[in-house]
């Protein structure tokens, strides 16, 4: 194609010279016109692909200028032919669009927060520690969007346009609690005024449309709830797909040594100490890999190893069961305490549940670490087992917590029924003394604070989640300060007056625990997803928490941590964490979906469809949601998945075949080359012999002549 374009300019240039520097497209035949257009398009593609070519800058600049001149000259000329106005317009719009895209890319990269911080961490600690902070920043982005949705579409309209505080019973602090409603202790516990505010579910009225905008608040609440879940799914799956594409599927062990050799150096390292660590770890990993290769056949007492591994798994199961039971027991105890009245108990007893859960989350992983010493796995495999166990621990704890909460919810709902019954009695008693039968009564005004009302279990659930998140955050920060900062201070300053070298031996500075921190982040997000429906304030709280975490952990890692000694990357782990996030998302939205289903909250959609939209819309919707239509659709999707799976398998197969073919082809080429080389050598020999023979003959004949 490039040859063609070389020809065209010369032809056209000839014409140019003939016609005084003006190219007349009318003089070119239609095919030549087409060829010219194609040549111009080719040049444009070349310009776009220039940055991906491994040429030195000078060559690229020259090619760029040449191609740009060519394109300008002939684009202008082409524009003079038929449809020139449209063509010129199209060209101009494409140019403007590309410029806009480039400016937008520049703007986007300038907007990314914390770029310098992360880059500094990368240069000191390498990319595995930095990957945690990149993950944190990504989570922050997701939570910002969730916060935007809940704040903008639910909390703000209610605050601005809903009935104000104090107008109806559910929005008012009950008379009995009024005295303590403003106390800091009560507010910190999210009771009092905080409870009866836009922060929690209970504040929102079921009035269909509020304010002068006729904003449909119940519908919006429901849709925002569904929307946050849908958005989270979409983002997680999209990231997983992107990682899978970049990563290269499967084949984890087929290029073990080559990868160690070609890809193990981290070019972001700018710190000599980190570089030394990296050298040491690379050497260790080479030596280990070589040893493993040699010893892979040795059996070495496999029965003992198997027995130890089974024992270790049994111990871990006992731990998990024990922690589950502990949580259940503690939640029941806290229910008893609330029945007695919270003032009679100490701070520990009031916050028992949250503290126990946070402490379990801190100590059990250490226990698992100790137990895994029995198992004698390769470090990468051991890490995966450890992560799996911590995952099971957190999941078990979360679900035990929810089940215990369910019991409380059921108790509260029974209470509500009783209270509703009592309200009718109470209302009747109000009218008792003042009326006779069969007369209409003027409505008696009662202050909303005096109306007896049942507990709102949704608000209670929201409160529990908020308290859990706050105590989890506090525990993390305090462990950080004590475990990392205090330890570093002690090691640094006590080292002067201690018998053994604190910095080199025990306890030394701590390393940054990437996997533990990432798991903590994932579970925190799971709790947010679970509770966001009942407490719209949760995403806001999480945004604040992540913001503070970023600064605190960046400071802590630069100040108190040392680079890791064993720097091996669990390379598939990027998608491993994403897969865990997806599972957590699924499991944490299950309870909310269950309660929505049970209380038929989605009736609000039905109602909106009936009253706000034209009738044909409702008909279409009812056809679409007919089970007879939905089931075949689901079947179709399952079949599509099966089809895609089988085509990907066949592609992998084709790859293997091609590789084999390449190998045999190369071997044949080598054989052919050898044969040809041999033949050429023989021919050369013969030619040489013939030449020397003829030289001899000539000499001989000359000798004879003289």
């Amino acid at each position, binding site marked *: 194609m490039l040859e063609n374009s070389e020809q065209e300019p010369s032809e056209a240039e000839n014409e140019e010279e003939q016609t005084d520097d003006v190219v007349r497209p009318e003089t070119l035949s239609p095919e030549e016109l087409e060829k010219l257009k194609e040549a111009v398009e080719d040049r444009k593609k070349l310009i776009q692909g220039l940055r991906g*070519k491994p040429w030195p*800058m000078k060559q690229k600049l020259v090619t760029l200028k040449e191609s740009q001149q060519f394109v300008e000259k002939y684009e202008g000329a082409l524009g003079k032919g038929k449809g020139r106005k449209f063509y010129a317009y199209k060209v101009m719009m494409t140019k403007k669009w590309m410029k806009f895209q480039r400016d937008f890319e520049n703007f986007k990269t300038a907007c990314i927060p914390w770029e310098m911080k992360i880059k500094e961490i990368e240069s000191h600690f390498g990319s595995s520690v930095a990957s945690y902070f990149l993950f944190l920043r990504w989570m922050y982005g997701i939570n910002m969007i969730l916060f935007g949705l809940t704040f903008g579409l639910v909390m703000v309209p209610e605050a601005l346009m809903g009935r104000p505080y104090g107008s109806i019973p559910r929005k008012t602090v009950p008379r009995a609690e009024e005295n303590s409603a403003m106390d800091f202790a009560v507010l910190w516990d999210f009771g009092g005024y905080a409870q009866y505010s836009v922060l929690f579910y209970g504040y929102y009225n079921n009035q269909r449309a509020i304010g002068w905008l006729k904003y449909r608040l119940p519908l919006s609440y429901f849709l925002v709830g569904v929307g946050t879940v849908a958005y989270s799914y979409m983002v997680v799956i999209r990231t997983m797909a992107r990682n899978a594409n970049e990563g290269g599927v499967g084949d984890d062990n087929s290029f073990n040594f080559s990868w160690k050799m070609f890809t193990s150096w*981290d070019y972001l390292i700018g*710190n000599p100490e980190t570089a030394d660590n990296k*050298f040491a770890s690379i050497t260790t990993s080479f*030596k280990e890999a070589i040893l493993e290769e040699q010893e892979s056949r040795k059996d070495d007492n496999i029965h003992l190893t198997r027995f130890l591994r089974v024992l270790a798994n049994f111990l871990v199961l006992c731990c998990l069961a024990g922690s589950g039971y502990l949580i259940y027991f503690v939640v029941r105890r806290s229910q008893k305490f609330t029945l007695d009245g919270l003032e009679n108990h100490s701070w520990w007893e009031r916050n028992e549940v949250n503290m126990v859960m946070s402490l379990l989350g801190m100590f059990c992983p250490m226990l698992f670490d100790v137990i895994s010493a029995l198992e004698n796995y390769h470090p990468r495999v051991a890490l995966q087992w450890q992560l799996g166990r911590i995952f099971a621990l957190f999941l078990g704890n979360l679900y035990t917590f929810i089940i215990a909460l369910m019991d409380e919810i059921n108790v509260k709902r029974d209470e509500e029924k009783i209270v509703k019954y009592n309200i009718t009695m109470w209302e009747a008693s109000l009218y008792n003394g003042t009326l006779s039968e069969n007369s209409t009564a003027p409505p008696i005004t009662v202050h909303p604070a005096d109306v007896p009302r049942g507990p709102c279990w949704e608000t209670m659930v929201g409160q529990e989640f908020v308290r859990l998140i706050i105590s989890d955050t506090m525990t993390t920060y305090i462990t950080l300060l004590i475990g990392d900062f205090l330890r570093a201070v002690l090691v640094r300053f006590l080292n002067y007056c201690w018998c053994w070298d604190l910095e080199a031996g025990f306890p030394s500075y701590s390393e940054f625990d990437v996997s533990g921190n990432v798991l903590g982040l994932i579970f925190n997000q799971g709790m947010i997803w679970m509770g966001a429906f009942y407490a719209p304030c949760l995403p806001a709280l999480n945004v604040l928490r992540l913001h503070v975490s970023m600064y605190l952990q960046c400071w802590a890692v630069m100040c108190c941590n040392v680079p890791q000694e064993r720097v091996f*990357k669990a390379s*598939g782990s990027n998608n491993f964490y994403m897969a865990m996030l997806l599972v957590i998302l699924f499991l944490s939205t299950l309870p909310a979906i269950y309660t929505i289903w049970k209380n038929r909250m989605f009736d609000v959609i039905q109602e909106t469809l009936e009253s706000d939209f034209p009738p044909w819309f409702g008909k279409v919707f009812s056809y679409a949601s007919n089970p007879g239509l939905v089931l075949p659709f689901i079947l179709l999707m399952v079949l599509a998945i099966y089809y895609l799976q089988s085509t990907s398998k066949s592609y992998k197969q084709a790859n293997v075949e091609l590789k084999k073919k*390449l190998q045999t082809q190369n071997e044949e080429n080598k054989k052919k080359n050898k044969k040809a080389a041999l033949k050429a050598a023989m021919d050369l020999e013969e030619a040489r012999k013939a030449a020397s023979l003829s030289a001899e003959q000539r000499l001989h004949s000359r000798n004879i002549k003289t």
Partner: protein
Amino acid sequence: MGTTASQLGKELLSEYQELTFLTKQEILLAHKRFTELLTKDEKDIPNVRIPMERILTLPELKSNPFRKRICLVFSTSEQKDGSLTFEDFLDLLSAFSDSATLEIKSHYAFRIFDFDDDGTLDFNDLQTLVNCLTGETDETRLTPEEMSQLINNILEESDIDKDGTVNLSEFQHVISRSPDFVSSFKIVL
């Protein structure tokens, strides 16, 4: 033409944006860091060339075991002494940037690892590579037996046509399946 000492022309800046994977801010930052390395007299010379020793004082390159090879590969000087002009420097940053494609990164990685510049990675290249990676001191180096076993393993894995060397396409094939390569082959100012 060429870069003047203090300012990059607007047109040149947009051309550089077109020809590299760097954003405008990154190019300007690179220009700033490059001019910081110049001495007072050099600041007025257009298309000035900085010798390799001064480039190697950059903190991003100082701890890199391949720093000399990187300079030699990206240098366009006729003496092949590893000196870089600003445009060579931009080429370097573009190949090591976040948005560079796998093809260009693997192409330059191959050239960096090809210590004898013969277009293939043979036994000696691989040996030098391993020695670079295991550090300077003797305790961290591999014994000759370990070394030969390692290199034989590598050739077994990557050398598809079994000619005893790894050429560019075999290298790119191995690298394209690695999940770590793109994220570790990065230098950011």
